């Protein structure tokens, strides 16, 4: 049986409040991770979409360039002089070619299988004989 003194002393003791413990790391972390997890997921998703988009754009632009180049080559093939390359034919070809690059590409890689008629020289041969002064 508790006496009034006991009760009074008990009341006095209760005025001393125990000091609160430090927060449990997981409890504080779990809150932030719960909040940041969707944010992180969204960030990763957006980054992935951007990367994929960039890759697709890159591939598509390359295709366009390749197809343009192949188009130029086809046009060049169509218009390229069939006779052996001379200064005249080269000038004529440059004048009618769709672009300078396409013309040069075509002239550079065209086959030299067809023999030159007697008394004529190829433009490349003439250029190679010239002494270029720098």
């Amino acid at each position, binding site marked *: 049986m508790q006496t009034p003194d*006991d009760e009074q002393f*008990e009341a006095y003791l209760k*005025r*001393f409040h*125990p*000091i609160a*413990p*430090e927060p449990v790391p997981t*409890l504080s972390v779990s809150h932030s991770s719960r909040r940041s997890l969707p944010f992180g997921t969204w960030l990763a998703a957006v980054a992935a979409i951007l990367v994929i988009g960039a890759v697709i754009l890159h591939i598509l632009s390359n295709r366009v360039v390749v197809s343009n180049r192949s188009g130029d080559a086809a046009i060049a093939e169509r218009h390229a002089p069939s006779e052996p390359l001379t200064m005249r034919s080269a000038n004529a070809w440059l004048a009618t070619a769709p672009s300078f690059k396409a013309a040069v590409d075509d002239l550079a890689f065209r086959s030299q299988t067809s023999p030159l008629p007697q008394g004529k020289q190829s433009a490349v041969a003439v250029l190679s004989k010239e002494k270029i002064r720098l």
Partner: protein
Amino acid sequence: MGRTERNTAEIEALYRQHGAALLLFASAISGDRGRAQDAVHQVFLKAIENGSVSQAKNKKAYLFACVRNAVLNDAKVQDRNMPLDVDSAWFSPPDRDYAGEQNLRRGLGELPDDQREVIVLHVWGELTFSEIGDLLGVSSNTAASRYRYALAKLRGSMLAKENSCADSR
């Protein structure tokens, strides 16, 4: 709200509500504030993992029992009997009565272990003698009897300390 989130929220609430008393109880058993803190954290981390608290009928008594087991298991593992660390504060004193706080800590430190447990559980844990009896594996009468002895000893000890302080002034 998901089941896990509900469980975590419940444990957070229990930690806010009983954390201080649990830490005091752990300190009173282990004698070391750091080990007491570790034991309390361990109990709550396990509670988050396995969700065992939500199944307990008396959650507060269950938590006190878990903390007691954690401290005693830790003491077994470490195999050492540390003296009660009364240098670090256990209480926030009323009206800045720091001398009173120190006297209380020292008085608690002088009590036998079983009496110190009972007084902490009843005064600051606010457990009934029946709950204390269940927790310690003794009858409620034994728990009440230990409490009365503890209270008398503590009062005597604190009065003596107060008087000696007054005499020294």
